[in-house]
């Protein structure tokens, strides 16, 4: 899986409450989550996520296990999330819902500038420089390629 998008820069310790607040968890309507994603961080951010690659700081997605967080980012049009480290549950949820997550150190972020990534070859390119990403397991790659665990499992059965 490969892609290129415009950079959206986030800091460290972005928790899943700030990705999608508890008050929006009553519904199962994904469009509501997409509309309000990252609202408490920056209310103007959601419309800019279509075709975006998020470059976040360490411990991305910490806190609550809510799977609504990676679903909201994906539904809003985020192509991939890059961070030097991810919180465990968010990382696994993202793969399970088909949102590419890439562990990569030192990627600089300039808002709006292009960021490219290749999961198959394990790299990120930003500002004309290529950075090596930590590889995903074969199984995780297959789940992402299938678009998530549900599709992956359906294809197996």
């Amino acid at each position, binding site marked *: 899986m490969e892609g290129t998008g415009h950079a959206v820069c986030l800091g460290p*310790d972005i*928790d899943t*409450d*700030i990705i999608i*607040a*508890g*008050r929006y*968890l*009553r*519904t*199962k309507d994904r469009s509501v989550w997409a509309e309000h994603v990252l609202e*408490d961080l920056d209310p103007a951010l959601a419309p800019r996520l279509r075709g975006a690659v998020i470059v976040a700081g*360490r*411990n991305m997605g*910490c*806190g*609550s*296990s*809510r*799977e*609504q967080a990676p679903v909201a980012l994906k539904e809003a049009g985020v192509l991939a999330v890059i961070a030097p*480290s*991810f*919180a*465990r*549950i968010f990382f*696994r*949820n993202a793969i*399970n*819902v088909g949102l590419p997550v890439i562990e990569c150190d030192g990627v600089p972020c300039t808002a709006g500038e292009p960021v490219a990534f290749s999961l198959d070859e394990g790299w990120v390119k930003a500002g004309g420089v290529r950075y090596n990403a930590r590889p995903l*397991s074969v*199984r995780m790659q297959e789940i992402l390629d299938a678009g*998530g*665990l*549900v599709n992956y*499992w*359906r294809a197996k*059965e």
Partner: protein
Amino acid sequence: MSATITEKIFSGRCAREVVAGDVMMAPIDAAMIHDITGPLAIDKFMEMGGTTVFDPAKVILLFDHQVPADSIPAAQNHVMMRRFAEEQGILNYDVHEGVCHQVAVEKGRVLPGDIVVGSDSHTCTYGAVGAFATGIGSTDMGFALRFGALYFRIPESIRAEAAGAFAPRVGAKDLVLSIIGDLGADGATYKAVEFTGPAMEAMDIPGRMTCCNMAIEMGGKAGIVPPDATTHAYLASIGARTTRKEDLTPDDDATYAAWKDYDVTDLVPQVAVPHNVDNVVDVTDVAGIPVNQVFIGSCTNGRYDDFLEAAEVLGDETFSPDVRVIIVPASRTEYLRTLRAGLIERFVEAGAIVEGPSCGPCMGGAFGLLAPGEVSLSTSNRNFRGRQGSTEAEVYLCSPATAAASAIHGVITDPREVA
């Protein structure tokens, strides 16, 4: 071979010797779903072709985040989960029984050596009775409900060895906050935290639950206390008993990612200041900050023992008229115990609002929300920006003793200074 508790638990349940780093499909002894993440998990279960759950007796189902239903969509989620419970033959604890993590433990649904998953990050609480318990998302839960098994990467462990004895009005919450402050909000990411040592051995199950509950706040996959005589006495008291024979005591010469020694003897009350759980300071550093709301409750500190700790600090005083004090027991059982001991009456007399067992203001979903500029002092587990209402509000985390002392004076107060 020498092993951590986590390695011993997975070796026991997978019938082969496993070590940290192994990836295993492991059997699930219990799977917990609640009203926030359960509906999505049930959808995923269906989407993966699920018709009947792997074992209805191993599914724990209840409502705690938005109870009684605070909106029509919440009520619809409850209806959907009630129907699922009935169709699948799953015992439904419904809205009245309490917070998932307290209920799962006090009903004996989790035993030493179990592998337990829950679609809630604080599922790590169950390590207090010697289980390996971890939070998962709704898709993984859909898979677990269908197959009764899940892929796990066996985590490395951090040994947190706590020596000494607590000074008066200092306890489990202060210890775990100080450990989080030391290790950082991602200091245990992908790892299990083993809480051991004389201070843990002397601690009762409620305190151990407080410590294990907050393992996730340092990124931990699990928090575990080795099961001992205290664990077995607790299990006997609730009519539960394990038939497992494995020795789950961790080996001192096992391979640990880190070994951290702590001494609680000189520990003072700790407070996590906004907006990260690892911004931990001594209470004396923040004493005097005015608070608008004090919340005593949650899966972290909503048990009888926590209310007793708060009541002892309260004594015959009243709460400050400038503070809204919200008391929420973590379960019906803990509520009744607190009620029968006369503590509920004392809190109400002193000016508190007492709500039925639920997550309460912890998640900022149902009630007790904060306005911009307001300050909350909370015995719960997260102080993220916006967690309890406005993003311009501030949440401080502390022990029940510190919460009670501060509620009396209307400003953050060292509980050791209250007579």
